[in-house]
């Protein structure tokens, strides 16, 4: 009896030692986060919401991989429960209770099961998207802690123990202290950084049900514009990159990665981590396509971007800002914000835009259109249609925002269909015509915040002259800028996408489409409508209203794959092994649908540009017009 009495204290003591070690390791890591710049964080609110953010928002993403979800619930739940229960056994009444130790043993046994699940993803062969490196020892540490803990608790429960106890306890200690040690730069960092990141998330709106996707305006008076080195990021962004578990979910969602362009979002985040911390263990996941090795100096003040730096400029300019990575990331990391901060520095401070993007951005700055085309020519697509100008009318129910697509011959067909539908439904609408400037979306995604802000101010001033209830646009990029990004520049507008507006007209009986049952169609979600604005239902409802046979692609809705047209990627034109639109069109072809329905000028242009296309590319407005004409 006497011999195991102290062990009931030593075992809980081990867990307390683990906690202390984890705390020390966290503090050492936190010293690195503190080099970041200041950020406003509502700590109390964030901490209070932490359980909800974890259980609802994180779980929503994790559950897309049911195996990973179950694995994590078992292993993390078991680990937390077992460690907490053991730690509490420091209280003598609990330590004396054999039933209590049985409970502890049970919790450790659950952890052991979870550890086996963790191991099964990595042995005998690791899943392709996972990283190796320190993560490969994680199952062993977990197993040692869990099995050691189970046996120790069992022995304490039955009250024998004797000679075996020191061994089981040593096993638990090896595993447990190893896990705590890994909090600084190993796999267990994700637990601490992930929890803190959830509380201090830079986009808290994500958890309150709003699509918090607008880029944050840059103060153009700031001494340094954008991020050149790790220390230029705010501290909670640095923290967020440390939360990455290297799960590779972002990697398999990334269109640029799939096309063999030199971008891998996981690697990008890991490069930001390794850039901050020179002692970081080497990266052990899939490389950037093209296989460029990391080079250049590291440290909080090291230059991150450059042909000779950690991240090659081509990596930075390959991103289409599609947010697929953000949508899939279980750690709620904001990759696009990182890309745009880095681009802002390159563009604003160094003028280091990709060569092919310089022309369009310069034209945008000088003439209000990326193609340098005359602004009055924007309405040329409507020659022969009656297109009322706001300048003549002064007010209208609906202001129709035409966007850049209006200059495009192919897309002009879509806009003509839309205008005819609006006429048909007797909508009181008008356009800005020559007064409409580009929203500046292209400039903003390419990091040219100065041009974006100048255009935003001009457009806001123009819109202030007229009275209208809503803006309707067929361009999701314009929609996103006007709806989510212009409020920061004094323009709060109600902005409706044309698909939602057309659905409204159908439901109100102002459009009475016939049915087109002979067409089979698959709908391609635009990133800036689905992921940036959460709108996936209206376009489908319009298609259903005209009785089309609708099939879904494997990736659809908020998880759809990008067409390659966003974020200035078409003008930057970074070479890859394949083209993104070809990949997307092939996915559409798998459905066997004869028509790919689109709802965005960029998607139209990208998908129409695919050679050997079997399916037709039609905008929802065009399909609806056909149905309305068939219904007469």
């Amino acid at each position, binding site marked *: 009896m006497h011999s195991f009495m102290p062990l009931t204290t030593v075992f809980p003591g081990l867990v307390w030692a683990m906690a202390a070690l984890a705390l020390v390791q966290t503090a050492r890591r936190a010293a690195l986060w503190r080099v970041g710049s200041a950020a406003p964080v509502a700590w109390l609110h964030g901490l209070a919401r932490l359980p909800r953010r974890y259980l609802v928002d994180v779980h929503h993403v994790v559950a897309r991989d049911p195996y990973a979800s179950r694995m994590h619930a078992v292993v993390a739940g078991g680990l937390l429960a077992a460690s907490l229960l053991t730690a509490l056994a420091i209280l003598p009444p609990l330590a004396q209770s054999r039933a209590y130790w049985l409970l502890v043993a049970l919790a450790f046994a659950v952890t052991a099961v979870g550890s086996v699940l963790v191991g099964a993803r990595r042995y005998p062969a690791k899943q392709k998207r996972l990283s190796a490196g320190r993560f490969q020892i994680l199952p062993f540490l977990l197993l040692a802690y869990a099995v050691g803990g189970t046996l120790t608790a069992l022995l304490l429960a039955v009250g024998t123990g004797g000679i075996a106890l020191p061994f089981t306890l040593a096993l638990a200690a090896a595993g447990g202290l190893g896990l705590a040690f890994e909090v600084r730069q190993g796999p267990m960092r994700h637990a601490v950084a992930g929890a803190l990141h959830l509380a201090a998330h830079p986009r808290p709106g994500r958890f309150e049900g709003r699509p918090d996707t607008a880029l944050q305006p840059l103060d*153009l008076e700031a001494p*340094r*514009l954008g991020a050149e080195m790790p220390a230029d990021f705010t501290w909670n962004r640095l923290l967020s990159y440390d939360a990455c578990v290297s799960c590779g979910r972002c990697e398999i969602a990334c269109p640029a990665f799939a096309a063999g362009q030199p971008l891998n979002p996981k690697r990008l985040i890991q490069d930001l981590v390794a850039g901050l911390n020179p002692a970081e263990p080497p990266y052990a996941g899939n490389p950037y396509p093209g296989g460029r090795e990391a080079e250049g100096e590291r440290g909080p003040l090291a230059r991150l971007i450059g042909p000779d730096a950690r991240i090659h400029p081509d990596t930075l300019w390959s991103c289409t800002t599609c947010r697929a990575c953000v949508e899939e990331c279980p750690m709620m990391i904001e990759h696009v914000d990182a890309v745009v901060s880095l681009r802002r520095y390159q*563009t*604003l*401070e*160094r*003028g*280091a*835009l990709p*060569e092919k*993007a*310089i*022309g369009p*951005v*310069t034209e945008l*700055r*000088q*003439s*209000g259109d990326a193609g*340098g*085309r*005359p*602004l009055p020519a924007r309405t040329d697509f409507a020659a022969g249609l009656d297109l009322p100008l706001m300048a003549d009318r002064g007010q209208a129910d609906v202001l129709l925002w035409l966007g850049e697509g209006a200059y495009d011959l192919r897309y002009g067909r879509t806009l003509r269909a839309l205008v005819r539908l609006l006429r048909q439904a007797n909508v009181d609408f008008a356009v800005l015509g020559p007064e409409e400037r580009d929203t500046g979306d292209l400039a903003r995604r390419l990091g*040219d*915040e*100065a041009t974006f802000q100048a255009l935003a101010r001009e457009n806001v001033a123009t819109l202030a002259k007229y009275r209208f209830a809503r803006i309707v646009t067929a361009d999701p990029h314009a929609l996103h800028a006007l709806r989510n990004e212009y409020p920061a520049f004094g323009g709060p507008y109600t902005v409706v996408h044309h698909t939602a507006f057309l659905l409204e007209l159908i439901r109100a009986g102002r459009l009475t489409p016939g049915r087109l049952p002979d067409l089979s169609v698959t709908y391609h979600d635009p990133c800036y409508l689905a992921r940036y604005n959460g709108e996936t239902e209206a376009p489908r409802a319009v298609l259903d209203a005209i009785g089309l046979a609708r099939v879904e692609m494997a990736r659809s809705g908020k998880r759809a794959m990008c067409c390659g047209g966003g974020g200035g990627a078409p003008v930057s034109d970074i070479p890859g092994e394949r083209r993104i639109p070809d990949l997307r069109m092939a996915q559409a072809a798998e459905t066997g649908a004869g028509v790919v329905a689109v709802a965005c000028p960029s998607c139209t242009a990208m998908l129409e540009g695919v050679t050997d296309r079997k399916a037709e590319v039609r905008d929802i407005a065009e399909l609806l017009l056909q149905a309305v004409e068939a219904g007469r």
Partner: protein
Amino acid sequence: MKIAVLLSAGRHPVSGAAVLPRLEAQAIRIAVRLGEAFGVLDGGSAPFGLHAGPDAATVADALGQGLARIEHLVLPEGVDPVPALAEHLAATAPDVILAGRRGQGGGESGIVPYALAAALDRPLIADVVSVAPGDEAGTLRLDQSLGRGALRRVVVRGPVVATVHPDAPASLAYAFGRARRGTIVSLEPTAEPVAGPAIPVEERPYRRRPKIVKGAPAGGSAAERLKAATGESGAAASGRLLVDPAPEEAAREILAYLRRVGVVAPDSTRPNS
């Protein structure tokens, strides 16, 4: 190596906004590359811009497109900039003076660089697309565009004025942060102000010029008459159409064409012809 770029107040050809003329932005890129080649990128010896006119705001864009400093000779509206520029350039004596081959949206006389070269007694190399250090010390190698992709290489010794051709590499991107850091130095010219020559201008709305129909066939089918009327029987139609030719024959035809338009030197060394 001192490099000056002449900057003029321009207008965007489509929007009419006050912008730096495109050719001058291209000239800046040439100046920056040349400065890099000579290792004079920073400090007082870096390439600088020079503007003479009432307001430097219109050329301030040059600060974001590669220049760190602009010297502004303040002149009243309507005054001929050449005497002030010549006086200032004679005093500062840059080794290379770069200018656009003509302005954009202003007077567009295209004469200022020539007037300056004459006043400074320097050679003027027109329509360059690149300027680089020559093989011999103290020389410069300039590539002049002859149009249609043809280039002529010129090597000069001593100070030179050069005008830039549109085929030169496109301008550098505008960097807002750099523009913020750049400086504009205002200078009072001492030269007597002389009114600029009044350039007779007449404004007319733009109208596409009708195509001149040459040798329209009197008879012929409707398609032939249409072809003639739309100019389709012009230069483009005068070529030979070869369907599925042998590679050698195709290559010969292409070479012959390139010789005809002067891109490739005439063939004088063929032994048996």
